[in-house]
């Protein structure tokens, strides 16, 4: 007999379970659980693993595309979603959060987040070929921010660079709402042959269960239940030993070995050990297969002595996989792993009794019916309520706002503010070349990678404006989807599907639950209108500090397909004399804008409206124009409005900035005209000879357009409003973030 604490209701409460949930366990087992069983229930029923507050809402997402769209080979429910590119090839992708661990230990928290999402993708048999990351930090001048930014970015690079998956894009925002709870969302996409997809479903009674990868230590015990499902307070400091260290080198070996393994017919199922480690991987595989699974815990390879069965079941040591092999193939499996200096051990077998069982020193410490942990886990209908100040915050009377006296100064201020400044300081730390597919590097609206040997390409973008979501979560959720799709469409990639990471406060707060439901409804409506499928995702609740929730942040990672990758478009001006044209129309809105926040210190007003029908026509127009190679450049207008988008088109060109001369018509207030964030607008440049073609397209699509001016000169001139020397503006924009994060001033212009 090993010694364990006596299981009581109090112990269950200490595990984060409720009294009701504890009684439910007693009922499910018809007895008092063992200490180990209590641990297993606590992690499997945690919000993080069970989706108990969110599950019913996630069902609203469309999970197939429109007729004629690509086939969805795998929707939500597996380790990652899969979309067919053609008859032979498919892409596998998912986004996931690693927020709490990254706040505690930014480097390793972010690094292990990257490691985890990469495992989700290669687990399905795919070779990971591109990553994105979406980051939210507190105010740039908050004392902890620079430390957290440096650590997180170094961690993402440290892992991604070493494991050989290029990081090709992402987003970074700073907002005081994240001062005590940063967000680190990581996305990976892989490619797979459509007939070689592996799913994690344990089958074949008697088949051996094998453990491969790093040995088990006491890493992150209770990570899933305590960290990801509970809000932060001063006590979280005590959880520090729960930090996990990643080993990207071992992960790289695992990728190669697993992909080699999957070329052969030796295994039935494979699953990575992520949150809740051995427990969740065992239970999920058996659950999907409708079988049972029995483990001999004494066989688990360990890193230290005297690790208890409880710890073995709950450890979150990284870089581990669980495999159901075909009986008799154990040695072949071991031989493949040995070639990569990895050890594979038989630790259990598949059973037909529908039970999750585990033995320790010959004693059965776990005997739980699998459905009690999966399908029959608690599901909650939590109360939802609109925040009391919702209507008040949407009020905004712009006539009371003073007009700036110097628009050039305002534009410079916006371009050097941390949210709009170039993110080069960040993405320069990521290998974006490895794998040899990156056609458009970080720095344009969407990253474009080619699919070798097919002539096709994939467009990738990750987006969410959480200020919009705070002021109106429905519209904010909608815009996250719409903007992602638009970033792809302007780049020439047809948006087809997305993966979402829903970062919110505590679902036990009715206001948060309301935000959550509204955001999902907005995302759903946008997906339906644009014909997009949600194929995978992740929910991260309890993002709060001292009772204060973060701004709602439903991050959307969008994936699009280019049938000819050479027809991609980038956002920067390319040719002196090209015409500059604005597609879409400008509404009289300043609500929720970056301009209001940066210049007037206001987070107020309604986010811009979206006409989904017009948006769809605009995106279709951009795609057609890209195919016909009408545009020299196309850039989505987002935060900072028309003036910022024009400036970006001038200064983001990697080979050096280009000027532009522009005149804006219309009788809007200058700040609305320049900095308002009306949706469904794109700035394009094109040779004069292509103008008739564009006019035909806009006419057919019923998209309004305006001639703005032309590319050229050494200044950005917006007639009557501003004139700025482009080289200087470019330098300020490129170095602002470096200065604010590292305090180092770079004086030379490259």
């Amino acid at each position, binding site marked *: 007999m090993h010694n364990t604490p006596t299981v009581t209701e109090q112990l269950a409460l200490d595990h984060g379970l409720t009294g009701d949930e504890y009684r439910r366990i007693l009922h499910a087992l018809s007895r008092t659980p063992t200490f180990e069983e209590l641990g297993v229930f606590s992690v499997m029923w945690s919000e993080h693993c069970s989706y108990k507050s969110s599950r019913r809402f996630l069902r609203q997402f469309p999970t197939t595309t429109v007729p004629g769209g690509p086939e969805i080979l795998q929707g939500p429910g597996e380790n990652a979603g899969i979309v067919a590119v053609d008859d032979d090839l498919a892409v596998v992708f998912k986004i996931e959060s690693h927020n709490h661990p990254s706040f*505690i*230990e930014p480097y*390793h928290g972010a690094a292990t987040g990257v490691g985890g999402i990469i495992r989700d993708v290669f687990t399905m048999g795919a070779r990971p070929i591109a990553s994105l990351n979406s980051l939210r930090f507190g105010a740039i001048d908050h004392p902890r921010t620079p430390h957290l930014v440096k650590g997180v970015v170094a961690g993402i690079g440290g892992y991604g660079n070493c494991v050989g998956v290029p990081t090709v894009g992402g987003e970074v925002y700073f907002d005081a709402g994240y001062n005590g709870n940063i967000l680190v969302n990581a996305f990976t996409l892989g490619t797979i042959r459509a007939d070689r997809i592996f799913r994690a479903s344990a089958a074949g009674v008697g088949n051996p269960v094998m453990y491969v990868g790093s040995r088990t230590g006491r890493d992150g015990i209770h990570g899933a239940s305590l960290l990801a499902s509970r809000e932060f307070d001063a006590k979280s400091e005590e959880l*520090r*030993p729960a930090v996990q*260290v990643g080993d990207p080198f*071992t992960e790289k070996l695992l990728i190669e070995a697993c992909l080699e393994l999957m070329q052969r017919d030796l295994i039935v199922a494979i699953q990575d050990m992520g949150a809740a480690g051995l427990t969740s991987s065992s239970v999920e595989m058996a659950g999907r297969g409708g079988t049972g699974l029995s483990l001999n815990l004494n066989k688990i390879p360990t890193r230290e002595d005297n690790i208890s069965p409880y710890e073995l079941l709950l450890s979150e040591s990284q870089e581990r996989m669980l495999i159901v092999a075909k009986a008799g193939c154990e040695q072949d499996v071991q031989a493949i792993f040995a070639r990569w*200096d990895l050890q594979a051990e038989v630790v259990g077998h598949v059973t037909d009794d529908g039970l999750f069982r585990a033995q320790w020193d010959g004693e059965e410490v776990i005997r739980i019916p699998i459905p009690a942990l999966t399908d029959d886990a608690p599901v909650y209908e939590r109360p939802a309520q609109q925040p009391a100040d919702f209507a008040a915050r949407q009020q905004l009377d712009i006539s009371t706002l003073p007009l700036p006296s110097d628009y050039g100064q305002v534009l410079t201020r916006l371009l050097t503010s941390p949210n709009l400044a170039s993110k080069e300081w960040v993405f320069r730390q990521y290998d974006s070349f490895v794998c040899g597919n990156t056609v458009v590097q970080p720095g344009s609206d969407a990253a474009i990678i080619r699919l070798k040997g097919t002539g096709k390409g994939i467009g990738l973008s990750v987006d969410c404006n959480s200020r919009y979501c705070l002021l109106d979560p429905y519209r904010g959720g909608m815009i996250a989807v719409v903007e992602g799709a638009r970033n792809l469409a302007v780049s020439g990639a047809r948006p087809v599907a997305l993966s979402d990471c829903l970062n919110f406060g505590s679902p036990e707060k009715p206001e948060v639950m309301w935000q959550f439901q509204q955001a999902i409804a907005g995302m759903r409506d946008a997906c339906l209108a644009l014909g997009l499928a949600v194929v995978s995702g992740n929910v991260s609740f309890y993002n709060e500090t001292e009772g204060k929730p973060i701004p709602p942040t439903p991050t959307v990672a969008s994936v699009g397909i280019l049938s000819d990758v050479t027809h991609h478009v980038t956002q920067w001006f390319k040719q002196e004399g090209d015409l500059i044209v604005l597609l879409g129309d400008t509404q009289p809105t300043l609500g929720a804008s970056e301009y209001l926040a940066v210049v007037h210190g206001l987070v107020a007003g309604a986010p811009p409206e979206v006409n989904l029908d017009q948006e769809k026509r605009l995106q279709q127009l951009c795609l057609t124009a890209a195919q016909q190679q009408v545009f020299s450049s196309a850039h989505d207008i987002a935060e900072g409005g028309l003036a910022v988008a024009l400036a970006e088109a001038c200064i983001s060109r990697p080979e050096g900035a280009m000027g532009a001369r522009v005149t804006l018509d219309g009788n809007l207030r200058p700040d609305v005209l320049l900095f308002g964030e009306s949706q469904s607008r794109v700035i394009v440049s094109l040779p004069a000879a292509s103008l008739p073609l564009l006019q035909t397209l806009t006419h057919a699509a019923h998209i309004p357009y305006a001639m703005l001016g032309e590319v050229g000169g050494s200044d950005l001139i917006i007639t009557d409003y501003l004139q700025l020397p482009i080289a200087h503006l470019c330098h300020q924009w490129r170095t602002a973030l470096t200065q604010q994060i590292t305090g180092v001033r770079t004086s030379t212009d490259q």
Partner: protein
Amino acid sequence: MLAKVYVTPKKAILDPQGKAIAHSLHTLEYNEVGDVRMGKYLEVRLQGLSRAQAEQRVEEMCRRLLANLVMEDFRFEIVEE
């Protein structure tokens, strides 16, 4: 005065570097090698402090910057030069 600072990974924390070095040493047939742990060694030159002040200041530097207390332990010695 010189502070010699030793920063080592906490015992329960994975040390992938140490693991890889041990593996290589075994490949080179140093079979007598068991576990390897890898840490940092810093030499910090100090001016104008008494020994007691140095002890206190270096302790503080370790806590604030030189070691990551989430994952590392440290110790140090102060030597006269």
